[in-house]
């Protein structure tokens, strides 16, 4: 991290530049959602808009984390802490997988009546 007054003075120009990129990124996010000819995929919102929107957001968020939060040159311990946070967040987001593949979900019994696959819930 820039620590000497000279280095910090130099870094402020970078901060301003990153700020401008973030402004530009925000305008781009809105433009790809609102301006018809910039619309990717189908007309209106679709999965490609989502991918593009989230990519721009990720780039912006990374710039904030790397430059403003000094993660581009930090001590190892901070990387460990932040890394664990991200892994935790990943598992938090992955919780939705439980709704899809619930290991303890009970599906009931098949009735065994010939020709019937009807599922009778357990009571």
């Amino acid at each position: 991290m820039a620590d000497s007054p000279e280095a910090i003075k130099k870094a402020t120009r970078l901060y301003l530049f990153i700020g401008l990129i973030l402004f530009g990124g925000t305008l781009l996010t809105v433009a790809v959602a609102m301006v018809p000819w910039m619309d990717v995929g189908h007309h209106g919102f679709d999965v490609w808009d989502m991918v593009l929107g989230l990519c721009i957001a990720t780039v912006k968020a990374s710039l904030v984390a790397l430059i403003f939060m000094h993660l581009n040159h930090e001590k190892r311990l901070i990387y460990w802490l932040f890394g664990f946070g991200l892994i935790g967040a990943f598992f938090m987001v992955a919780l939705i997988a439980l709704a899809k593949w619930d290991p303890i979900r009970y599906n009931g019994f098949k009735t065994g009546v010939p020709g019937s696959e009807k599922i009778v819930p357990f009571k």
Partner: protein
Amino acid sequence: MEIPYIVTPRKDTGLFNSKIAIWLFLASEVMLFGGFFSAYIFLRLGADFPWPERTLPVLPGLINTFVLIASSVTVVFAWASLKMRQWGKFQIYMAFTVLCSMVFMVLKGIEYNVKFHHQAVRLKDYAVVEGHLGYELKDGVHLEHGHEPKEEDFELDHNGKKIEENVINYETSQIAFNTVRFHKPWVEEIIARAAEKNAKVTLASKLELATAPGKTVVFEEGTPLDVKLLESVKEAHLAARKHNSKERIKNLELQWDKAKEANPDKDDRELAPNVAIDTTALKPMPEQPAIPFKVDPATVFRFKPRDVKEDAGTLRDGTALTGKLVESPMVFHYVDAIDFRHTAMKAEEKGVDPEVAIENSWLLKENAELREAWEWHKGEVAKLEKKLIDGYGMDKKTGKPNRVPTETERYRIGWKDFVAKANGVGRGEEKIDLKEEFTGPNYDGRKEKHTFPHLSIPREQIQFASKFAPAWNTYYAIYFTMTGLHGLHVIGGALVLAYYLFCGKKMYLSNPEWLANRVEVGGLFWHFVDLVWIFLFPILYLM
């Protein structure tokens, strides 16, 4: 006690301690927000209604994004100024940061406020109407376009507040208040309303109660309704219940002892089913679970829809009304959107052509003004379809257009569309004031042109009604949860930064490096708040 390593780094970690602390906190925050983003994805994937894509006004959200980014830049400038020992510059940058946080919260407040006053209703055929309700005029007259009622023409409740045109009118000849749970404001409203209508609400029969054994209190028939009266009855009723329950327990213990004495060899479990309270020996005090009143002459009382079970004539506090439900429409003074996306979705599920379902909806069948708007809308959709074909052509293999209008464009008439129609221009060519981009349509400014239709919806057509609050649907629930939590972070961060700004001078003079470290830590939190918003803005406003 001196706190170690808050100015100079610890040798083993190479960091000052507060920095480790804030990163530990931020790691937990990343997980917290991760959980909420997960909830958002879960709700969106599992939604059983058309997810309201791109439904929020973008401009306030966009400005708020700019505001937060700007404040992120200035907070890092403030830290750099401290490092270079420039107190004056630090103050300017920090003041700007705190100002940004206030602008952010004010804009958020405006957004929330607009939503809390915006009514939505889902009809039985899943058509959605959005807009603003009017206020009741005296004697059940509803506010219509073109009327200019004076202040004294409006109906007021017992607090002197105007009543929205969304009340359940119940013509009541008898009321049985629930003694324990009666809700005081409703009793006050009933008293005020009866006085206004010159009706008498009096005790239907003489009540003889007791507050203690032998201590009788009498409430004479014909005593006028009063909160104090209800409270006295409640007191006696609760005293009686307490006394009677004690008596019953005492009696049961006595019976048990007797039974044990008579059958010393029997097991407790064998004995238990045959031991009962001897009710003839009890001297209970009279209980009064409901307090009957008669209303003479029968009077129409008004209740909020959520406070009354309409069919049974029972209020949410257990008070029972005798009489009949009077016509109680929900009256939109201004309809600013109608939305058939849900109707179309339900129709497709049933294998019905959505267009047929929409044509047969109550909204279009019974309301000429909305029918006219729909016809206009169909014309606009056709224009858009043509425009998309002209612009993007047809798919040669399938013979279908490459681009087609979205569900929203097909099935929703929004407030800007109503404005376009009233202005006699095509969709998207309407003139909108800057203020309207924040607060929604300016009804009064456009009233003369009848831009927004008036609509009276009979109660039986309504499936669900709510303001644009978390109750309306899971989109608004997660919107308020996530932006609310984020807003609390903004307030918290701003308070800390403001503390450095206003109370930091002393520390700056004695130990400037320490203050710089503190500002760096506060700044890290502030950047995180910005970082969360960078994701919240696109997913809530643009997707």
